[in-house]
């Protein structure tokens, strides 16, 4: 544990190059032999496992610092290379340097004045706070300018063209430059010519980019593992270093023995290969070094790069304690702010309790209960106690009592999770801030995490096996912060579009629809049953024709509304009639709420749904998160109560339509086919009238698509006439609970044209889609029109076409998710440390301004009204009441459009298909 307070802050970090001298100076030992261990299993001196490099086996002592395995930080060694070798990581720099300096005198190929001008520009930009990339750009410009000179302005030498043969071979007009020659040239560049090229001569000399000695990382970086068989298996990096040492040795011997130039050069190149792959085994242009098994070696760059690399998997992302993960399931009787935690998890997850005079008794009681208090109801116990000296005592049934005796001020008791603890709850992918919210714990039976269904949309969760993570907060500050900022109820209104993301879904909407549609009534038993689940009174009953007391669903619902709320809007079931009959709407779609009483209209998705719920939106905005959460809790329970009493089911017989309707659909489709055929023959005879701006073929396609689209719609209409409001599937589609009328007409009527890239199907066999059709057939059936319905079933060719269309959707979503995931990562990396300051400006960590005012208007989108600062209409209505309705555009706002865009973003593949097809973009 970190005991002391950190008193130093990092103010800057500087990167520089290691000189060969420095490499040798920091080296604990020179490595000369490729052998690692002797026959007795002891590391060989000056080998790759030399104990001077640090030790990993416990008990041994490091020969450099004398400390034991866990205390020794490890020490670098080095290999002296027989011949210099190019460092792959710097080839770009090397090329730039070679091209922009003189081959004879080594000076920058610019006059003093030109060079100075560039340095001044650089200094000026830096002074003005230009970013490092822009500053770097200037040195690139300088190099480019210098490289374009053909004669040295200093010595007059003519320059030859230098090219790079990837990855590491430099050529001068075709003649190969050895690393040694390159190094000699770089050595000639004077210090004062380096700054214009963006190099600080105090921290880096260009010739250091050519390696003459290679640092050998400490053993701790590349530990060997002992297999079960007792054999030792070495790290990939060690393997690579062995290769380097072997070739280095052979190269030295051959060179010293005066071997032919060709052999020396071959070995030299081999050494270059091994050192290149030692750095990066995915260097393009050379084959990756492989293990005997054929697996490519994981060398330095591979350790850092990518998702599994050091940066993304160990530095930006870390594993944590006090967390749990399990399957999720729903519980409509939990508050939206709660999460059900299984007992097993609760006994494993702990909260530290700092013992003081006031809680000593409580702490003692907790400890006495031990690690597994028996019986029901669940009681929190204690797993560990931390003493003042930092020692950790494991509490067992046996020692519980004695440990509780010694408890005193300053001890820390790690108690089990209990009801009311604040925890963070998260579902991946965490795409927005609502993907991680704070919940209050409810310890429950069984093995799953449970939460209110209204919270599914922000997590994008369902219960087909989804798992979620839970994190237990460990300090009071963290708990307070989480409770204030992260609690579910604080996130009902989304910052993305200023509307609710948390709200009724599926059966909540159906339930509340059944409750309030037209004048649905409930008898005393039913009404009390529904209302028993929440903390409100029964409203006044009405008298039925039979003389008994009845309760109108609308009155029951009104009990949940604040007393002073006024609203007017159109429900989801609104048919968008030409002329709205408003209160007298025969669909009961015109919602009027006055003084907290639902007068007319049906409550459905537009009222309480996630994304679209207007009542929810207004309550959350005007009455605050506490009211909104209790409204949601009650409304969902009431809906579940109502749907339970009415009973609700759906099945394929919901899509049953009478025989004569089927015949009508057949007829419509037959006529459409004929029309298509007539278009085709008109096209064949050259009688088709070309549309402006389209080719004849395109005209034909457009006409056919239009005709078949019309036919499908007609089929849908015919089917729809026989699917009325008594039909469960229709109820769900109309009130916005699930599915759409299009889905239904595809099930009952006709599926319609399948498309790939927005065109009728054309690919497959030569000149035809399938061998079942004639070559060149342009008819409806041959090009992917599915005339069957899902209920009647598809013919084999139709099935094939349908799969083609479906496949495109799957591929699209797969591509879209990977691409948007990458974009998200880039955006987060760019924006993560921006901060809104006290004065409302947005600044980065360097203190430069990104925006003078957050969003340029300072509006918090989650407190805005769909992005607007104030809801003028709402204010007018509040002030003027009924008379204000003409002034305010009461009816429709952009509510529908944001809902749909939003869903589109979070949709899973199979849902996307059903909901994007009927997406309606409203204009306003």
């Amino acid at each position, binding site marked *: 544990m970190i005991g002391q307070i950190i008193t130093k802050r990092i103010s800057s970090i500087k990167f520089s190059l290691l000189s060969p001298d420095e490499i040798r100076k920091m080296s604990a030992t020179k490595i000369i032999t490729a052998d690692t261990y002797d026959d007795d299993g002891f590391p060989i001196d000056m080998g790759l496992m030399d104990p001077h490099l640090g030790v990993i086996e416990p008990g041994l002592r490091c020969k450099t610092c004398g400390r034991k395995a866990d205390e020794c930080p490890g020490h670098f060694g080095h290999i002296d290379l027989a011949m210099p070798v190019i460092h792959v990581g710097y080839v770009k720099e090397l090329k730039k340097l070679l091209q922009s300096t003189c081959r004879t005198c080594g000076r920058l190929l610019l006059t003093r004045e030109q060079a100075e001008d560039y340095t001044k520009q650089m200094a000026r930009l830096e002074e003005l*706070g230009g970013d490092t990339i822009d500053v770097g750009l*200037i040195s690139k410009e300088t190099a480019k300018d210098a490289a374009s000179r053909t004669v040295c302005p200093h010595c007059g030498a003519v320059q030859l063209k230098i090219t790079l043969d990837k990855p590491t071979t430099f050529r001068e007009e075709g003649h190969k430059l050895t690393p040694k020659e390159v190094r000699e040239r770089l050595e000639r560049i004077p210090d004062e010519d380096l700054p214009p090229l963006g190099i600080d001569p105090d921290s880096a000399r260009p010739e250091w980019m050519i390696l003459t000695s290679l640092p050998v990382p400490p053993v701790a970086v590349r530990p060997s593992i002992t297999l079960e068989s007792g054999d030792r298996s070495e790290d990939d990096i060690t393997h690579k270093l062995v290769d380097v040492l072997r070739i280095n040795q052979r190269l030295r011997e051959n060179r010293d023995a005066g071997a032919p130039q060709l052999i020396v050069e071959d070995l030299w190149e081999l050494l270059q290969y091994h050192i290149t792959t030692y750095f990066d085994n995915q260097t393009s242009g050379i084959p990756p070094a492989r293990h005997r098994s054929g697996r490519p070696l994981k060398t330095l760059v591979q350790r850092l790069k990518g998702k599994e690399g050091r940066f993304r998997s160990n530095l930006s992302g870390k594993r944590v304690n006090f967390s749990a993960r399990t399957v999720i399931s729903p519980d409509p009787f939990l508050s939206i702010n709660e999460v059900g935690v299984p007992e097993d998890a609760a006994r494993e997850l702990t909260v530290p309790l700092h013992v003081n005079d006031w809680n000593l008794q409580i702490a003692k009681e907790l400890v006495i209960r031990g690690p597994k208090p028996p019986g029901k109801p669940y009681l929190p116990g204690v797993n560990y106690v931390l003493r003042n000296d930092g020692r950790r005592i494991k509490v067992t049934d046996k020692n519980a009592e004695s440990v509780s005796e010694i408890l005193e001020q300053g001890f820390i008791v790690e108690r089990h999770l209990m009801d009311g603890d604040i925890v963070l709850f998260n579902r991946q992918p965490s795409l927005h801030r609502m993907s991680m919210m704070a919940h209050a714990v409810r310890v429950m039976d069984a093995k799953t995490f449970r939460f209110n269904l209204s919270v599914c949309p922000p997590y994008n969760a369902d219960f087909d096996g989804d798992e979620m993570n839970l994190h237990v907060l460990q300090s009071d500050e963290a708990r307070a912060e989480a409770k204030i900022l992260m609690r579910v109820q604080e996130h009902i209104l989304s910052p993305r579009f200023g509307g609710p993301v948390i709200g009724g879904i599926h059966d909540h909407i159906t339930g509340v629809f059944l409750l309030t549609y037209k004048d649905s009534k409930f008898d005393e038993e039913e009404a009390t049953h529904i209302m028993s689940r929440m903390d409100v009174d029964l409203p006044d009953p009405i008298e039925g024709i039979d003389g008994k007391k009845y309760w109108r669903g609308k009155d029951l619902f009104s009990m949940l509304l604040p007393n002073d709320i006024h609203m007017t809007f159109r429900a989801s079931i609104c048919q968008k009639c030409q002329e709205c009959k408003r209160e007298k709407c025969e669909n009961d779609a015109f919602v009027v709420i006055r003084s907290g009483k639902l007068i007319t209209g049906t409550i459905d998705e537009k009222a309480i749904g996630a994304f679209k719920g207007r009542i929810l939106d207004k309550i959350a905005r005007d009455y605050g998160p506490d009211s909104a959460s209790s409204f949601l809790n009650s409304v969902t329970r009431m809906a579940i109560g109502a749907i339970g009493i009415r009973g609700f089911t759906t099945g394929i017989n919901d899509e049953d339509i009478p025989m004569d309707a089927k015949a009508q659909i057949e007829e419509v489709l037959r006529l459409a086919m004929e029309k298509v055929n007539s278009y085709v023959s008109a096209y064949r005879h050259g009688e088709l009238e070309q549309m402006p701006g389209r080719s004849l073929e395109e005209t034909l396609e457009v006409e056919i698509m239009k005709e078949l689209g019309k036919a499908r719609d007609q089929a849908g209409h015919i089917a729809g006439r026989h699917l009325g409001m008594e039909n469960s599937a229709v109820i769900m589609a109309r009130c916005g609970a699930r599915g759409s009328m299009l889905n239904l007409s595809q099930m009952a009527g006709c599926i319609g044209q399948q498309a790939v890239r927005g065109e009728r199907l054309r690919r497959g066999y030569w000149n035809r889609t399938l061998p079942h059709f004639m070559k060149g057939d342009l008819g409806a059936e041959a090009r992917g029109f599915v005339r069957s319905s899902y209920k009647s079933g598809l013919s084999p060719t139709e099935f094939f076409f349908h799969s083609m269309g479906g496949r495109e959707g799957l591929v699209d979503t797969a591509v879209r998710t990977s691409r948007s995931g990458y974009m998200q990562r880039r955006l987060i990396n760019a924006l993560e440390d921006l901060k809104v300051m006290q004065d409302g400006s947005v600044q980065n960590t360097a203190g*430069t301004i*990104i925006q*003078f005012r957050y969003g340029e*208007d300072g*509006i918090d989108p989650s407190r805005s009204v769909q992005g607007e600062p104030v809801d003028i209409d709402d204010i007018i209505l509040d002030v003027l009441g009924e008379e204000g309705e003409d002034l305010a555009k009461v009816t429709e706002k952009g509510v529908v459009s944001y809902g749909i865009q939003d869903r589109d973003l979070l949709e899973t593949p199979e849902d996307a298909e059903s909901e994007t097809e009927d997406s309606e973009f409203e204009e306003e």
Partner: protein
Amino acid sequence: MSEEFNVLEHELVPEHHLLSESEEKKALAELQLTKDQLPKIRISDPCVATLDQAVGPVEEGRIIKIVRRSPTSGVSVCHRLVIRG
């Protein structure tokens, strides 16, 4: 395209003003900022080039005030520092 086309007159381009030295001082004092903290605008930006022709030479280090009309906040003002490039 007509040769007299002026980007600053296009309806989608916000107002750009070149600040005088005294205006610069005042603006920076009001914002409690130093020049290097300002957002940047390149000297090659078409708006800067147009300003350069219209109201005299614009060099690196000058400040340009940009006034945008905004449906949510009326106007939003921001300052940018001219840099090379």
